[in-house]
């Protein structure tokens, strides 16, 4: 009913076609935050800023980047996907179970099945009109239960490492293949959003779902698509984790949920939808990874590490959030 009066801050204000310096700076904030953090870690421990150390960090970040990238699209649509981590764990179990039968096709099968499961959640969300928070919260516990049951609650070793070996290679000797794959995922999805109408649909849905629907945008389809992508990304991240851990386990990725959401928000994507991008999430995922592995490695004691993690992540979001795009912060 009552529409926000303040939400139109400049209805009779004029318009500047070019972004100002400040706006440009805001859009690069995630990268600036990343650089500052890296510099700070280097100051504390000069040994941290070495090629091999950075290589290890981006390799570590790869699954988180992929998870965050998929979920970013859901967030851009104004929803949230809390099931990515549990789905990823379930996918590692599937991978370990199916590898003996499917061989080289397993990776594709996993991504497809995880995508289908994501789509199922999307359908439940749009058809039953249940908030995505609830659907995926339910999904989270259901996937965990399935993973526990089919794995008999234990890890399943993967003996055939050939299938995932390619993910452990290094491009040009320095860039881990897993990270390259993550970059490709981010790039491809970004390009699709940019070059096809999907991008404007996603943003329209995020900013104002009812306006998008009344403009005849395929709202339900796009939302289901976003959840499908989110699921497929969880599947891909699962393959990466298996390539790293040589096993599938029903709890393997569970603790990546909050870091993935943190990565999205630290990147400056509005959690209310509409404003943001996958590149921002990439930068955000690197920031979060540096915090997760960097702080203990440079010798911060575990208690202070948590305090620092909390403080830095809040500071990072304060830096990267483009307040001109988000009027009311909940």
């Amino acid at each position, binding site marked *: 009913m009552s529409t926000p009066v303040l939400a139109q801050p400049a209805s009779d204000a004029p318009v500047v076609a070019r972004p100002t310096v400040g706006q440009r700076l805001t859009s690069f904030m995630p990268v600036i935050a990343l650089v500052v953090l890296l510099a700070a870690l280097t100051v504390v421990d000069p040994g941290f800023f070495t090629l091999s150390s950075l290589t290890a960090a981006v390799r570590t970040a790869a699954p988180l980047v992929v998870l965050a990238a998929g979920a970013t699209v859901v967030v851009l649509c104004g*929803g949230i996907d809390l099931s990515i981590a549990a789905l990823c764990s379930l996918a590692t179990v599937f991978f370990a179970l199916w590898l003996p039968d499917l061989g080289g096709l397993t990776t594709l099968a996993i991504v497809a099945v995880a995508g289908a499961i994501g789509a199922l959640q999307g359908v439940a969300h749009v058809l*039953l009109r249940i908030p995505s928070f609830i659907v995926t919260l339910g999904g989270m*516990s*259901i996937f965990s239960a399935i993973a*526990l049951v089919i794995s008999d609650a234990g890890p399943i070793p993967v003996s055939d490492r050939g299938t995932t070996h390619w993910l452990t290679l290094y491009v040009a000797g320095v860039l881990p293949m897993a990270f390259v794959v993550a970059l490709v995922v981010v790039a491809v999805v970004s390009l699709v959003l940019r070059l096809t109408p999907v991008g404007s649909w996603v943003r329209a849905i995020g900013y104002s779902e009812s306006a998008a629907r009344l403009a005849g945008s395929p709202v339900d389809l796009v939302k289901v698509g976003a959840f499908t992508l989110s699921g497929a990304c969880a599947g891909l991240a699962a393959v990466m984790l298996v390539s790293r851990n040589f096993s599938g386990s029903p709890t393997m990725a569970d603790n990546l949920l909050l870091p993935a*959401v943190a990565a999205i928000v630290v990147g400056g994507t509005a959690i209310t939808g509409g404003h943001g991008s996958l590149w921002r999430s990439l930068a955000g995922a690197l920031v979060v990874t540096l915090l997760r592995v960097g702080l203990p490695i440079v010798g911060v004691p575990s208690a202070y590490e948590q305090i620092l993690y909390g403080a830095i992540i809040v500071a990072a979001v304060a830096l990267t*959030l483009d307040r001109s795009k988000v009027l009311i912060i909940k």
Partner: protein
Amino acid sequence: MTSPAEADTEVVQARRPQPRRGVSLRDAGPPIALVVVFGVFAALSPGFRTLSNVQNVLDAAAVLAVVTIGISFVLMMGSIDLSAPGIMGASAITVALLVANNRNDNDLGFVGIAVAVLLAAGLGCLSGLALVLLKVPSFMATLGVSAVGLGLATLLFAGVQPNIADPMLEGWAVERFLGLAHLTWIALGCVLLGWLVQRYSRLGRYAFAIGGAEEVLALSGVRVAPYKVAVFTLAGAFYGLAGVMVTSQLSAGLVQAGRGYDFSAITAAVVGGTLLTGGRGGILHSTVGVLLVTVLTNGLVQVGVSPYWQGGVQGLIVVAAVAAAVIPQRRRNQVTK
């Protein structure tokens, strides 16, 4: 609208929606679900329908209820709060170190409890300040504060478990009044307090209004920021009390005292009918939600569902409960986030 004279004007006014003040279907859904779920488990399991099990369910609901009351105020504003694990951990360790314990010579009793709750309120206040001053979305602000709280707790923990020896605090979990543990009465007191705050205090009403239309409050000359900070502070205090209650139950201060309470409290509040977008629901709704979740957990163990499946069944039922509440009100152009 009883006199004939008024009935005439009614015609001219052509089907105006009647003002509603009573209980709507949406509000009635969760209590009905509670009764149904209770009935189903009672039919399935003889152990479930015993008086002692009902006491047990109520006792088990105590801590979750206090956390959920705290989170309900935040959800009413349309914000979200994930700081419960950290704040509860910090308050649990703090109280364990301040009352009679095996680590030091403190024996502050009630003062210790008050200090722990105050510390928790301070941490909650921090979330609120990050939200209104730094404009960090509550999702992240509270996540950060949770990490800070856990860090503080680990720092205070220092490798040795503090076990409490304070008879009063230990007694809370053990001693009973009218068949219910003192903790349960404390939780009931919190429900009452929460309801009074929601209904009769400016803080509670404004929290509700912020969830309804924040910008309107600003236009009406209400400064919203202090109320937001106050709501997070209040929520923090409730988490702090919950941390103290866990310490009483376990007779020891645990860093992990609040683990998992963030999502279970949100689940309980949502199942009870509070909307994550704010402006709807409330303390009584959340209390019903807490009972629903606790009855489910208890009932599933009672009927012997495999531990592997319990989480899944719970998830399914939560989705089903919300779907059942939402589907009848589904509209074509409805926005679901």
